[in-house]
Each structure stands twice: as C-alpha cells, then as structure tokens.
C-alpha cells in the first residue's frame, strides 16, 4: 500500500490513544491522543525537551509506547534532521533511499527524478552530493522521503540550520510538494511561521502533553489554554498613553483585527503593569475588559503597560473611561 492507495481511505493512517512513552525511567510523553488522516499534514510545535522528537520516533516505530494503543496503516518513513548524504550523485542518493525501502531497481530512477522535481531539485540530479549547498542538501534529503511514498511521512525539523532566505524558499516549496504528494505527514518544526505555512492541523506539545491539536485558524482564534497562547506568541504589551490613570477605573476593550469579528475573540487582559514602581497592579476579570483594581499610588504622567493574552494576535485595546 502506498500514500496514493490511501486516497479516500476513511480511517486514520495512524492513531495514538492514551500513549505514554518512556526514556529509561523518565516519562517523556503522557496521554497522547492523536489521529492522522490520509493526506493530512500535522505540524508539531513545542519548546525544547517537550517530546517532539520522541513523538516522531514513536510514530516511526523506533521507540515503542510504554502504554496506550497505537495503530498504523502501512509503513512510516522518518526524514531525520541531519541531512546525511552518501558519497554519490544526488540521484543515486535518492535511489539509495528507494533501495533501503525495498523498491525494485527498475522503478528507482523515475521515482527519484519525480521526487527531486517535486522539490525543485531536478536540476541537481547529476551533481555530487558533496558539492551541494545547505539548502540543496536539505531538498535532496527531503526528496528521499517523498520518493519512497510512505503511508506516513515524518519530518524532523526540515529547516534546521538553513539561512533565512533558503529557509523561506524551502518552506514554500515543501508546502507545495506535500500538497502534491498527498502523503500523510507529521512535521516537527521550531518556528511558528513554518507551522502556519505547512499545517492542516497544529499540535502543541508542552511538557510531554499534547496541549493543543487544532487547525491554525482555530488556534489563532481560541487557543485552548493560556500556556498554549503564550507558547504560540499570542501575547502583547500595549503601552497606555500617559496621564490616563487618574480615574479609579479604566475599562479596556480589546478591538479585534480588521479580519476578525468581535465574537471571534477570546482574548483577555492578563495584567496591568506599572513599570515605574516595578510593582504589579492586579487586574480583575477575565473577559475582554479589565480594570485597574487600585490606583491609589498611580500618579498622572506615569506609564502603564497592559499585557494581553489571547487568541487573536495582539488586539488593540481602547480605553473606555
């Protein structure tokens, strides 16, 4: 069975139910529930040590779960972070991966060339692997994964170590290639913008738990927890104009960005900080408005900063005193 055979497959290509994974005595992944549909790209984000690579190794069959259930249709192939290429031509490197996968010799060249074309690396086919730039090496490395056409393709930080320009170009080309290939993919990335460029759904791993699993739009509008919102960078600080804290209460209304309706918002004011005194002023309420609970020692001319946590990125507060 190949990814193409799975087109229209009603069930998930892979599923994990309440999976726990240990490394030695340490539990790295806790209670992971995850289903990956045919043709879907799931991007996994998380801070260092959250368990992203462990999740990939579990899906790749390298690290078995300590408990829980796991199932998969067909085989998975993992494209590791290190783009290790053999002392051969680019085409021969892709053909080598096909040989590892067990593809008959007569099919290898055509599949290698097709995969290289998919990643806009067809012109490199005859070049020695040792003569490639970092970005080109990464394209060849990824082409190996696409060439074998696994039912589930696992990519571990495919943009690691690339300069910004090569990174941006490869992100766009990989997104296109994955859509054309139609393979179910799980990608671990480090930068949030890569997740938004590639993902059908984004999973956020925090401390070994899948803290969020939703589409980019859903996450942007309503991250499930404050931790997730913070991790995704949906926080902002807005400096209020001087001299507005003479009033005892200030009502801060969060105005959604132009492309959002007010009811899309699930943002809230988290804190009001008084920078000058270095003391935090507690804010009551968790809705779209907040007020300064005490302003006794706040004088005119002092600067006050409002920190916002929420779904819609950096909503602008307006002041209704």
């Amino acid at each position: 069975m190949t990814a193409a055979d799975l087109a229209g497959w009603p069930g998930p290509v892979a599923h994990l139910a309440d999976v726990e994974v240990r490394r030695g005595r340490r539990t790295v992944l806790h209670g992971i529930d995850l289903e990956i549909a045919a043709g879907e790209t799931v991007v996994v984000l998380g801070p260092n040590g959250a368990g992203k690579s462990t999740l990939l190794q579990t899906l790749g069959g390298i690290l078995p779960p300590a408990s829980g259930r796991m199932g998969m249709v067909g085989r998975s192939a993992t494209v590791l972070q290190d783009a290790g290429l053999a002392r051969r031509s680019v085409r021969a490197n892709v053909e080598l991966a096909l040989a590892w996968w067990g593809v008959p010799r007569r099919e290898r060249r055509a599949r290698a060339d097709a995969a290289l074309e998919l990643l806009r690396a067809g012109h490199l086919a005859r070049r020695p692997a040792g003569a490639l730039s970092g970005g080109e090496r990464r394209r060849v490395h990824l082409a190996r994964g696409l060439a074998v056409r696994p039912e589930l393709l696992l990519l571990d930080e495919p943009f690691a170590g690339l300069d910004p320009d090569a990174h941006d170009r490869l992100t766009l080309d990989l997104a296109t290639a994955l859509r054309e290939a139609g393979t179910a993919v799980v990608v671990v990335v480090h930068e949030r913008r890569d997740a938004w460029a590639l993902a059908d759904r984004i999973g956020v791993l925090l401390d070994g738990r899948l803290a969020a699993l939703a589409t980019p739009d859903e996450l942007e509008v309503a991250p499930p927890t404050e931790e997730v919102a913070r991790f995704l960078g949906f926080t902002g600080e807005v400096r209020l104009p001087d001299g507005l804290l003479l009033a005892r209460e200030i009502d801060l209304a969060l105005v959604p960005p132009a492309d959002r309706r007010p009811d899309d918002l699930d943002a809230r004011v988290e804190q009001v900080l008084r920078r000058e005194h270095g003391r935090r002023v507690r804010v009551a309420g968790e809705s779209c408005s907040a007020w300064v609970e005490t302003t006794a020692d706040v004088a005119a001319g002092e600067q006050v900063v409002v920190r916002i946590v929420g779904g819609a990125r950096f909503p602008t507060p307006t002041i209704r005193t």
Partner: protein
Amino acid sequence: MRFFLDGLAEAWRIVIGGEPWLWQLVTVTLKVSLISTGAAIVLGLPLALLLGLGRFRGRGALMVVANAGLGLPPVLVGLVFALLMFPEAPLGRFHLLFTLNGVIIAQTALAFPVIVALGAAALREVPAGLLDQARAFHASRFRVAALAVREARTGLLAAIIAAVGSGLSEVGAVVLVGGNIEGLDQTLASAALQRVEAARFADGLAIGIVLLGLILIITALLTIVQAGRGMRRVGWSS
C-alpha cells in the same frame, strides 16, 4: 654501495632470466599474502563492523584489544602457532606444521587485527546521520552494513593494503611455522633472510628488490582502486 649495485644487477638478471625458483617464491608469497588477507577480511570485517558501528557495553575495551593486536610480534605469533601445531598439541591432528597451510593460518592471525582495528576505525568515520537515516527508512542490517562498507571504502582499502603488505614482507611466522622450506613454503622475505644468513648478500638484496617491486605493484593496484573513479567524480559529503 657496491652491494646495492651488485644486488640491482643480480635482481635484473634473475628477473630477466625468469629463474623458476624466483617464480616459485613469488607464487608462494602471493598465495600466503592474498589468501591470508582474504581470510582475515572474511573473519575480521564482521568484527570491524560490530566495533565500528555497534553501540554496546565493552566496545571500548574490545577496540583496545584490537588496536593492541596491531603490535603483535610476528615471532611470538609464529611460536604460539608452531607450538599449537605440534603433533600432540590441539592443532596437531591437522598436520599443519611445516606446511604452506600452516603458514597461511599464522599469517591470517597477523592480518586479522589489522583488518579489525583499521577497519573499525574507518567505519567509525562514516557519518552517523547517514546510517541513522538508512535505519529510519527501515533498511535491513545487511543494507546498513553494505552502505557503511561502501562509504568507508577508502579507509578499508588502507587496512587491506596494510594486511597485504604484512603478508608480503613478514618472516617470523613463516620461519617458525613453515620451517622456511625452499620450494614448499618459503616466501620472498624468508628467502632473503636465508640468503643473508648464508652470507649471499647480493642474492638476498636481489630477492629483496623483487619483493619491493611486488609490494609496489600490489599496493599501486590497490591504491588505484582506493582512489577510484567514482570517488573523484562524486566527492565526499558528511
């Protein structure tokens, strides 16, 4: 200086003259060297793969043993094998003492650590990322090993050159196990030793020069293979 000139002239005369005993010596030398190196490759390469690619407890200690094997005194190896091949000894029933097969076995024991230690060192230089990637694509162990051998071919051929060189020029084990019997198991190196002991210095030097030529030809062939066309064309990548 005169000895060298006489030796060169004698070597030229012997080679041009096509002396049958010379061809006999060359044949025995090549047999001992190539068969023992081949056997050492067959026996030693799996161990080199284990030490070069394996991750297990005790690997470091085994590497120390293998490296120590590079310094094995040939005389000691020859003595131990000769004693083992005595009629009442464990290998006595195979009647190997003072035979070409006995010499080949002793020489294999000398070439074995060369293949293991230098081979393991060459295999350790193969980028781990490449081998891990093969495993991540579910490549069989055989395919991973074949990939490692291919990628480490330059270093592995250096190990083979060292083993062949040792087989061509080694004397101690040949003399002690084989008895240095002319026409049976005498090699070029042990024949040179015999001529020198008989104060036939020009003969000894002539045989030495023939031996040197043989070493040059064989190592040149192996070096050509080592620096093969594919490597120049494709280049190295990590």
